[in-house]
């Protein structure tokens, strides 16, 4: 199980849990970062900053501070 921050580009995974609490947790879940959801990393900027993830057909950019709270189980590559 890894943090979503460490999911390499073009790699897929399933969210297994969120380490966030309170408002942040709710906001993340509202965007669709719910346990059981499949996520793929689309793009990263070297040196941190915003990274773009694909889930439920939408592309969402998150900062490291937020993606650190999401834990993923790897499930393969997207060709």
């Amino acid at each position, binding site marked *: 199980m890894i943090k979503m921050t460490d999911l390499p580009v073009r790699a897929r995974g399933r969210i297994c849990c969120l380490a966030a609490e309170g*408002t942040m947790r709710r*906001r993340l879940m*509202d965007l669709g970062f719910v346990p059981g959801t499949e996520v793929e990393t689309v793009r990263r900027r070297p040196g941190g900053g915003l990274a773009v993830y694909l889930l*439920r*057909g939408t592309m969402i950019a998150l900062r490291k501070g937020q993606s650190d709270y999401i834990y993923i189980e790897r499930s393969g590559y997207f060709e």
Partner: protein
Amino acid sequence: MSNASLFDLAEGSSRRTGSPPVVALAGNPNTGKSTIFNLLTGLRQHTGNWPGKTVLVSSGSYYYQKQEYQLVDLPGTYSLLANSPDEESASEFLCFARPRATVVVADATCLERNLNLVLQVLEITTSLIVCVNLLDEAKRKKIFIDIKGLEAELGVPVIAAVASRGKGISQLKEAIKKMVEGKTCVQPRSITYDPEVEKALQQIEKQIAGKGGAFPVNCRWLALRMLEGDAGLLKKAAEYKNLEEISVWGQNLPKP
């Protein structure tokens, strides 16, 4: 636009047959909701702040077959359960003002995401019409939606639209008319949660119903919000409906 007036507007219309029925427009951000709002209301609209918040709300009116309809464009939100001012305002309006019909605009290119909001609104009101917009964009990405199938799954009218080209707008107006007149047969999909969650919900609902008597608000939705830890919603209910008892009780709700 004062809070009182927006709510009076909606309420008044459900009681007095003379005043134009209020229709709420909801949906995720970026779904073309504003396009639909503009198409319907044209110049007869006005944008202002939601009182006490920096949330923008627009309202306007349109005529269809000689009947005037008041349209309220709620802020674009991903859900109604979280606590941002946008979501609170939208949720409050749908919950307390009880518009005669609610249209949720969904983006065909990411329907799954949008269905989250649709299902939540379905928990609040059954006078729901889903408008699946941006079908041309979906087609471009080779995504196809079975509209009739969706209607069957949700149990409420679903209208296909390409708002930027004006397609589907007349069907939408017709669906709104039928809904407002009570001529639409809805069999809304009911959502069953975990057994534990359902038990908690029922407990809360019973308590709300017990205290409120003829409480004209959707108890299940209130109960859902309370499980979210949002006792504030009951406080708001008290503002509009003079139900202080419930609001005080709500703050002391034992956590299940």
